[in-house]
């Protein structure tokens, strides 16, 4: 009995973890942001391939575009709709295109009356110095407000399309990504 529990439980449990959460074998991190380094590529490792299939993803090859996901803020606390967060984006669009979107834990968009689900390098309003400050909050805020109410779990997805970025990341030289600062909670 112990043999079966150890073998089946251990085998399936570790496989599930490696496919869902990933490890240093298949992912790279920059602060709270995590990317699957070979996502979309024909030479993707088995964990990345299983992750892509299980989550019904259709990623572009990570040689062109990187998709980062964050479930926590920069302090390591789970993103919560009861809190307000500030994300300062700078240095991302040195020749590429980016998008920051908020989803629930299943990858669904979060219903909101403003019908706003993402900002991109084309749609975000910038400060005079070129930075973009995006505020995530349940209630309306001035500037680049991304609503996050209506979901118990929040996943932020940052997509960066820039071949130079992608090449640097594949060589292990991950550029710093925007921190997710918790401003206040209620």
């Amino acid at each position, binding site marked *: 009995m*112990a*043999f079966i529990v*150890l*073998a*089946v*439980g*251990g*085998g*399936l449990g*570790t*496989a*599930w973890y*490696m*496919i869902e959460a990933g490890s240093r074998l298949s992912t790279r991190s920059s602060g709270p942001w995590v990317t699957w380094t070979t996502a*979309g*590529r*024909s030479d*993707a490792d*088995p*964990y990345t*391939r*299983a992750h*892509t*299939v*299980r*989550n*019904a*993803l*259709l*990623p*572009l*090859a990570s040689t*062109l*575009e990187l*998709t980062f*996901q964050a479930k926590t803020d920069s302090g390591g606390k789970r993103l919560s709709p009861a809190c307000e967060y500030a994300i300062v984006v700078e240095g991302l669009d040195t*020749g590429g*295109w980016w*998008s920051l*979107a908020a*989803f629930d834990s*299943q*990858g*669904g*968009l*979060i*219903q909101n009356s403003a*019908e706003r*689900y*993402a*900002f*991109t*390098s*084309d*749609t975000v309003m910038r400060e005079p110095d070129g930075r973009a400050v995006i505020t995530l909050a349940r209630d309306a805020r001035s500037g680049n407000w991304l609503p996050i109410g209506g979901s118990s779990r929040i*996943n932020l*997805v940052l*997509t960066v*399309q820039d*071949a130079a970025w992608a090449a640097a990341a594949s060589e292990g030289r991950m550029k710093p990504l925007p921190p997710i600062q918790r401003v206040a909670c209620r």
Partner: protein
Amino acid sequence: MKGLPTLPGWLGKVGWRTVVGALLLGGIIHIGATLAVPLVSNGHAFARLRDTLPVNRMVILPPPAPGRQPLPFLTPDAFYAMCRFDVSVDSVMVTALMAEPGWTLSLHTPQGDNFYVLPAQAQRRQQVSLTVVPGIDRLGDLVAAPRRLASDETQVPAPTWEGLVMVRAPLRGLAWRAETEAALRRAACVPVKRQ
């Protein structure tokens, strides 16, 4: 000893041969389960889209909205045109206008592998045309790599008989919605007789 976690009582009675055997079998199960997921899963992107996309025809999808997303975690501020290609009988010609930076034309296998991608060039609208041809022989072996036949024609061998073509057109704002949609409507997917 204080501070160290204590193992469950039943685990202490397990012999080392059992533990080693369980680890070996667990490893086999781990590898088998990981490799099996792409083969047995029926919830992948291609399976989700198969019923909504006619074969070898481009379909413009509405921008993703809550409860109306073709796929999870798809960038929402964009229009998408998709085509489910099948090259088992004919090849498929794909044309699209790459209008702005951020636009991409990508080809995917049913398992989600992106075997070809073309991004739009900055400061340059580009009409692209490519032909998706079978890249595998009847035994399932890969036979060719993408090749450029002329300045305006590229042949892309697909590693699978079926797959998806996706054109992503980021929305620059509501004012550009009609213009973006019109440019995306120039994307097409047409079967062509194999030479």
